[in-house]
């Protein structure tokens, strides 16, 4: 698109604004080409690929276990969930049975990571709307969760905790108490969050009714996760197409009707509470046992393919894995929720203001590492 080829409704010149790739709140290196009439957007064109690392190609020259280590980098905010889907896909090809304790530990970690992701979302979304303090509060709580992760797997961001057939380490002593305290602390902090941001009249003014996504659009654009549920479609892969042992846990799938920025925000806040609920249940149910199934040292799944879907905090995170019987995957395709959720921007950005672009982009909750892979 060249500059000023589009005219506004009165026939005047428009302004072409390059939002990004270097911009404080495009969550990384996303570029939005905006055609502006004053502050109103006539046309928006997202441009991605600035962070393309060729992970799908890289995966073809790495072993399955190394691929789990690499999956940390898909979406660096929800590493545990990426580990989860990679491990599940390989196990589906291998056809191994996972020990009970490992299953619970996996769910514990995945849900803890969901909490972390939603706290970060809270911080960044509020930050996009100008409330700086919320971001720091979010990071403060995330720190506590990261310390839990650190005590389990020795890393704070790229955990590489899951193994094909189980998990790498058992919980350290005192972890269950610490996690319980974290859940309690998080519950009390959520009240602060609500006071500071959710109830705030300016925040509601900025988010209610902004960037509405209809049910039809959700289906047409294959949106998933909180974005989908905020528009009134009650579909959670953990419940409706369950995997691992999520069936054993009692949790609600929250759903909202309007599909605007505020509902997408509320979805995350509600899901955060549900995730805390699941964590509590796991902590109670944990029993001593094996954490790693018997798998060969060098994993060579039989030739075949599998499409495994999981519910990552950002949406449907799925892996299409093709094996040809060697130690490396033949093809690994990631169905990245951020990538597919981001497509809706082209449609809903027309007619909104520049300030709303940031709100809408923030409410979709993307990680550029996952969008570009």
């Amino acid at each position, binding site marked *: 698109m060249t500059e000023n080829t589009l005219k506004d409704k009165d026939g005047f010149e428009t302004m072409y604004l390059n939002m990004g790739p270097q911009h404080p709140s495009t969550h990384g290196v996303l570029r939005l080409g905006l055609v502006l009439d004053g502050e109103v957007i006539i046309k928006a064109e997202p441009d991605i*690929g600035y962070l393309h690392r060729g992970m799908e*190609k890289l995966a073809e020259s790495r072993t399955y276990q190394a691929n789990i280590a690499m999956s940390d980098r898909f979406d660096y905010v929800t590493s545990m969930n990426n580990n989860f889907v990679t491990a599940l896909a390989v196990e589906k090809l291998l056809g191994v049975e996972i020990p009970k304790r490992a299953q619970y530990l996996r769910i514990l970690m995945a849900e803890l990571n969901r909490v972390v992701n939603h706290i970060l979302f809270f911080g960044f979304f509020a930050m996009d709307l100008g409330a700086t303090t919320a971001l720091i509060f979010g990071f403060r709580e995330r720190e506590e969760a990261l310390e839990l992760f650190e005590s389990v797997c020795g890393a704070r961001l790229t955990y590489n905790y899951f193994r094909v057939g189980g998990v790498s380490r058992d919980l350290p002593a005192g972890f269950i108490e610490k996690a319980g305290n974290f859940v309690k602390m998080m519950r009390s902090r959520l009240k602060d969050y609500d006071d500071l941001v959710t109830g705030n009249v300016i925040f509601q003014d900025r988010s209610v009714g902004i960037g509405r996504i209809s049910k039809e659009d959700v*289906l047409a654009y294959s949106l998933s996760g909180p974005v989908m549920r905020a528009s009134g479609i009650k579909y959670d892969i953990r419940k409706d*197409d369950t995997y691992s042992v999520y069936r054993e846990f009692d949790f609600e799938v929250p759903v909202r009707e309007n599909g605007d920025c505020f509902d997408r925000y509320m979805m995350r806040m509600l899901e955060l509470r549900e995730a805390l609920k699941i964590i509590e249940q796991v902590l109670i149910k944990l029993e001593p046992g094996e954490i790693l199934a018997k798998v060969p040292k060098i994993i060579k799944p039989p*030739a*075949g393919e599998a499409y*495994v879907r999981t519910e990552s905090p950002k949406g449907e995170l*799925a892996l299409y894995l093709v094996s040809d019987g060697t130690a490396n995957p033949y093809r690994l395709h990631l169905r990245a929720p951020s990538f597919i959720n981001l497509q809706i921007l082209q449609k809903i950005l027309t007619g909104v203001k520049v300030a709303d672009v940031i709100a809408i982009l923030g409410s979709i909750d993307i990680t550029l590492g996952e969008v570009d892979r």
Partner: protein
Amino acid sequence: MDAQKYLNEIKGRFPGTADAAPERIKDGVPALLCPAPFLFEIVKYLKAEGFNYLMDLCATDYRDSLEVIYHFCALETNVKLTVKVRLDREKPELASITPLYPGADWQEREAFDLLGINFPGHPDLKNLLLPCGWEGHPLRKDYSRKPDQYD
């Protein structure tokens, strides 16, 4: 299996469609191998039958041919179905399903970008992830990267 019903229905309607090697598929979702010219019609039929959610669209290079894989899901009944299309490696062309599922837009562009599959009917088929003017399609198995300034 509920999805099997749709499979048989499609096999009856569109000649040339067949089951895609079931022993290869480990996730238990029935897969359909359909000829490229019928794809758009089949997807249209599937959408009318309630497969309202396109989970994933991706492509794989099998050295002798390219394969495009569509994963569909009907959210109400939770029935899943996989549709596969074999394409010629030299001149891969497949009708775009973007008019039916706008969400296929970027995924088709990605396949175009990384595997060189052409989707006639796509509104704006151009590079997505790779820089403009990149030569070759990295996810093809015979792709070899030319050394650049960083090597």
